[in-house]
């Protein structure tokens, strides 16, 4: 019955399954929605969508598939004015204006044109909750009785009455590609946690003790090691220059990461990794740490996360002496290569929007060096990055 709708949802990469579709049909069969499109919308939403971050995508697909579907009452109101207003307009338009209209291809053509224009307008605003008036942008006249004015008014009215719930897109800011806050980051980072029992057996294993006691008939105490988070992380932050606009996002990421991992070491670098990094940005020139020391000190089971916009001149990566701040003996690319050789799990998190990546050569070079493990600083990107990091090779 709604196979088309179902396929559209599937095509929009929403996780819908046949089972949920059958549930929806079952609910339709039992007459749960009261033959009103809004109720059908609510029902299908609660049946097919199980995560608030997908609600916005669902609204868009629903609006697209059931375009033009509105409840009856609003249609009745919308039907009357078109003819009525037409006559009204003809009554009030001067001869001159009428001719102007004629020259543009007649009334119908004009209406058609206008309709198209209105649709464009709506599309640009992506069906927002409020219809934006076009008085100023219309190339047509703006006197009270001209067709555009009336048409617009009517359209607004119609839309307002029908304010389609799915067109309101209330859940836009829950879409996972958009919002990111400390708490959300924490949830994403939590993927990395890997608890393991390791070390001395010093905690009482209560179920084990009971089981053994019951089995043997005497008190037999068993102990297990405590559960600890085993994940170790090295964090490299790009700081200064083009990163300044992303400071807030990075701060959030950093504060979330700090509480999430026990074994986390963080270092700063500028633009690209070279032979030294620093821990405190205020004393970056006096207290430098040799990158070799880091490579020697932290074992290969550390997971490495770079955070940086990877936007610089390509020379800064590929040529010795390319750094903007000092003379580097070896090219940044070599240092990055060393890191990826030693550590299995390396990702680069980039606060710049993905769509700009292909226009920045340096981003592409770095992405190539770390074998395409670059992710945007969105929840989705973090999620994918964490998945990559927790992979065992």
């Amino acid at each position, binding site marked *: 019955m709604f196979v088309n709708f179902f396929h559209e949802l599937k095509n929009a990469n929403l*996780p819908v*399954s046949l*089972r*949920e579709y059958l*549930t929806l049909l*079952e*609910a339709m069969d*039992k007459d*749960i*929605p009261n033959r009103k499109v*809004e*109720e059908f919308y*609510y*029902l299908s*939403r*609660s*049946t097919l*969508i*199980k*995560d*608030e971050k997908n*609600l916005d995508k669902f609204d868009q697909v629903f609006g697209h598939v059931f375009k033009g579907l509105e409840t009856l009452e609003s249609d009745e109101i919308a039907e009357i004015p078109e003819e009525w207003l037409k006559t009204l307009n003809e009554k009030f338009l001067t001869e001159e204006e009428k001719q102007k209209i004629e020259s543009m291809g007649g009334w119908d053509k004009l209406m058609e044109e206008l309709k198209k224009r209105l649709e464009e307008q709506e599309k640009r605003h992506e069906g927002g909750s409020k219809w934006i008036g076009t008085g100023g942008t219309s190339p047509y006249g703006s006197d009270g009785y001209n067709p555009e004015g009336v048409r617009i008014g009517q359209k607004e009215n119609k839309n307002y009455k029908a304010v389609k*719930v799915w067109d309101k897109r*209330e*859940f836009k800011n*829950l879409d996972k590609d958009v919002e990111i806050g400390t708490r959300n980051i924490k*949830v994403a980072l939590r993927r990395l946690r890997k608890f393991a029992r390791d070390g001395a057996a010093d905690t009482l294993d209560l179920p084990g003790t*009971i089981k053994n*006691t*019951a089995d043997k008939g005497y008190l037999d105490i068993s102990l297990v090691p405590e559960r600890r988070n085993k994940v170790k992380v090295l964090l490299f932050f790009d700081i200064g220059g083009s990163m300044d606009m992303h400071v807030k996002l990075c701060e959030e990421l950093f504060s979330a990461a700090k509480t999430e991992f026990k074994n986390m070491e963080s270092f700063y670098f500028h633009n690209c990794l070279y032979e030294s990094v620093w821990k405190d940005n205020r004393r970056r020139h006096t207290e430098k740490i040799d990158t070799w020391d880091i490579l020697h000190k932290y074992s290969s089971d550390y997971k490495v996360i770079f955070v940086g916009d990877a936007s610089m001149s390509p020379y800064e990566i590929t040529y010795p002496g390319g750094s903007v701040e000092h003379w580097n003996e070896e090219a940044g690319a070599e240092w990055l290569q060393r890191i990826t050789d030693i550590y299995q799990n390396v990702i680069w998190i980039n606060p710049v929007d993905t769509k700009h990546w292909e226009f920045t050569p340096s981003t592409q070079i770095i992405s190539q060096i770390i074998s395409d493990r670059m992710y945007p600083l969105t929840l989705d990107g973090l999620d994918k990055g964490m998945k990559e990091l927790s992979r065992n090779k």
Partner: protein
Amino acid sequence: MKFEGTKDYIATEDLRIAVNAAVTLERPLLIKGEPGTGKTVLAEEVSKALKMPLITWHIKSTTKAQQGLYEYDAITRLRDSQLGDEKVKDIKNYIKQGKLWEAFESDERPILLIDEIDKADIEFPNDLLQELDRMEFFVYETNETIKAAKRPVVIITSNNEKELPDAFLRRCFFHYISFPDSETMEKIVDVHYPKIKSKLVSESLKVFYELRDVPGIKKKPSTSELLDWLKLLMNEDIKPEMLREKNASNLIPPLHGALLKNEQDVHLFERLAFLARRENG
């Protein structure tokens, strides 16, 4: 049997449909939303409206799925056996029923609230799949199958601390309680404090939404905090005019402690208030 909200609970249309779908099709209903938007209260109100008994199962980080079915109390049995108690002969004496069992055996069709399912271990929902789907489980100790006579209405709440497994989600209806707009909010306030002066309500709602819009605030005040605050305002008999006083001395709303629960937020707000005052002066 239709749920239409109650006199103490304003249910939006989408919520009503989700509840009715879950009740009619006998599938669990998963409720998510900001803290304090009335997720847990919903189950209580549905139980009141549909006159069904409510069985609540609060989930903690240590809760295991098995505890909802039954627990076998081996320690008591061991002790009884050493004391030579007669009870020890029958293993049934040591099986403790869980909430699910209780719900399955209830005479009337009950509502089972599984509260804050995301607090438990990540495997917890998967362990309950079969039980919630078929509404039956097997007790190994006594070799019997417990089957629900009347399938309970299952309402599950989650605070989004953990992702729930897909297989589990596929079996549920889902509803996200979004934060009420000011119109719905006025209705909610009206239901809770019918005697409150309407002027006070609109003034305080204004302050409330302004506060929610302060950029960088860590914990946005929610419905339940607004209701607490109104109660305090009424108790102290604060005049609506006092809330409107935006000029000099008090830019911080009176009794703000009920709304802001985090000292960083209070500091942030005080700082903003200070800046605003300086601009005005």
